[in-house]
């Protein structure tokens, strides 16, 4: 069948109301479409209000009493003026450090093992599943576990126990992200290394790990950021302390240890103005620490995305 050239071209459109093809808000379909988009825009805007409010309060109330003294002194007694949370900053850093020392080697090694597993490896599947379930476990239960196994055994609250509880929370994130990063390394590179006669250890250390390093670091940094802000697992593992962790120039880790998060919790519900203000300042410092760590992680992640 051929198109008859005798027919004028415009004829098929005769009798068609062209205005129906125009976009008009008067039509229910179009109106609902625009209304739906507006609704989601509204909700998204509303979700940013709490974020703005939190950050605003942190800057205004937290910034008000933030001073060099606040950063370097020990917490004040209830009605005492001044004071600070220097020991809590130190305690947070020390406990996150302990947690990193435990969880990074374990997590990366486990990630290496999982990345080498075959698709149908049931044990690897089970381990991965266990790690995934662990990421969703309430953080306070890590504290309960450490309380039951370490605190009761050692007979007291220590920085070690706090660090271990944080390590439990960091571990699954590190395992899962380092496996993912290692799996992104092209198989060809691994095969080339093995083909040149590298043992699997050499292939891992000289080829896989250096290539996957940005991805692994991203996971590690994000895990650290999360651990730094955790409160619940520290409540009854490290407890709190009004004193410095340092005695005679050494770190004393076998004693109750202050942390920024627990300080905020303790000082948030007291009727003493000075302590409440310190809680806000501590919250500002804690959020700045966590955000800075997060930014480092995101910078690493975007560098990895750029390299790909």
């Amino acid at each position, binding site marked *: 069948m051929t198109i008859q050239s005798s027919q004028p071209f415009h004829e098929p459109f005769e009798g068609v109301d062209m205005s129906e093809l125009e976009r008009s808000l008067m039509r229910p379909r179009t109106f609902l479409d625009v209304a739906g988009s507006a609704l989601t825009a509204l909700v998204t805007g509303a979700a940013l209000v709490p974020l703005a409010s939190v950050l605003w309060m942190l800057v205004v109330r937290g910034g008000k009493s933030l001073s060099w003294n606040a950063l370097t002194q020990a917490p004040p007694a209830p009605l005492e003026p001044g004071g600070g949370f220097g020991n809590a900053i130190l305690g947070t850093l020390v406990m996150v450090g302990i947690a990193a020392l435990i969880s990074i080697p374990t997590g990366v*090694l486990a990630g290496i093992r999982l990345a080498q597993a075959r698709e149908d490896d049931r044990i690897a599947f089970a381990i991965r599943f266990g790690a995934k379930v662990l990421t969703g476990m309430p953080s306070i239960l890590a504290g309960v576990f450490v309380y039951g196994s370490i605190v009761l055994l050692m007979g007291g609250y220590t920085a070690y126990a706090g660090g271990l509880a944080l390590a439990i929370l960091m571990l699954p994130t590190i395992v899962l992200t380092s496996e993912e990063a290692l799996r992104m390394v092209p198989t060809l590179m691994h095969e080339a290394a093995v083909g040149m006669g590298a043992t699997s250890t050499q292939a891992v250390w000289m080829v896989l790990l250096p290539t996957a390093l940005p991805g692994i670091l991203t996971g590690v940094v994000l895990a650290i950021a999360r651990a730094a802000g955790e409160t619940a697992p520290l409540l009854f593992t490290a407890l709190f302390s009004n004193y410095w962790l340092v005695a005679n120039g050494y770190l004393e880790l076998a004693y109750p240890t202050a942390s920024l*998060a627990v300080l905020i919790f303790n000082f948030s519900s007291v009727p003493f103005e000075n302590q409440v203000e310190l809680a806000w300042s501590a919250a500002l410092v804690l959020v700045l620490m966590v955000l800075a760590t997060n930014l480092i992680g995101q910078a690493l992640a975007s560098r990895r995305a750029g390299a790909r």
Partner: protein
Amino acid sequence: MPTNHQTFAQPPSARQRVLDQIFGVLTRAAAWIAGLLVAVIVLQIAWKAVPAVREHGLSFLTGTTWDPKQQQFGILPQIWGTLYSSLLAIVIGGVLGLCIAIFLSEGFLGSFAFRVLSLFGAQHRRWALRIPDRADLLLRNLVELLAAIPSVVYGLWGIFVVIPLIRPWADWLHARFGWTALFSEPLQGPGLLPAVIVLTVMILPTVTALSRDALASVPPKLRIAAYGIGATRWETMLAVLLPAAKRGIFGAIVIAFGRALGETMALAMLIGNANKISLSILSPANTLAALLANSFPEAGPKEVPVLMFAALTLLLITLVVNVFGALIMSRAGVEKKA
């Protein structure tokens, strides 16, 4: 063996082979630790809870008083508070989070920025090319920033911002609708409502990120086909994209529900720690996690097994929800690949 600098490849030496073995054992051990940690935690908490289970049995789960002095322990109010607060938060947070996920996955902000730029005829200028994508990325990061703020800071914000803010509204609700079960008690500062509001904000990023991923993983040809037969953006969304992504979205909601159940600090600071069962969202309540946070630091040797029993209950509830969520997510992932 002749040493020759031209030789690149050599068989591994004995030392390298031993190192290889040791490294293999190490990675395997680490993997076992990571995998078995969940089991160890469950068993250890269960083991410590045995004395309390033996003493109180099931009446522990159905009792309504918590009084260490009288040696009376029941956690039904805490179980109720945990489930009720999380359910309220997931209903609100689920709807809002899904809206934000749609907004993000459709790139509304980007297309808006594009339209604004094209008003000035600048959309194809060199400096303007990346603005729409940048705007979308910025918004996504802002929503994820909500997840980066520690929960204790949310608690502090709840005490000093949310509670004073909602108090007049809560009083009005109580005065007008006090006859309904939802508002039958006045708000006395801390209570279920501020706790739920803060909890909703805290689970938003989880719901949003996971359901955005689910929406983004719907094959583009479905969307194109829907547009091709003349569907509007929202007809495509409601009739094609959401049904295609529903498993992933459901998984996102289950996982966020698990997070809400275990959330501790914000609730311990905001919910009021009152052991009572009430439908009223203005009355104070308690949750399992908040009970643990408030009681453990000062627990005597008699109280510890009881608290371990409460921890075990929380663990089992969250474990069931999380395993369920992880299963849904992995099945949604399988479908995606197929």
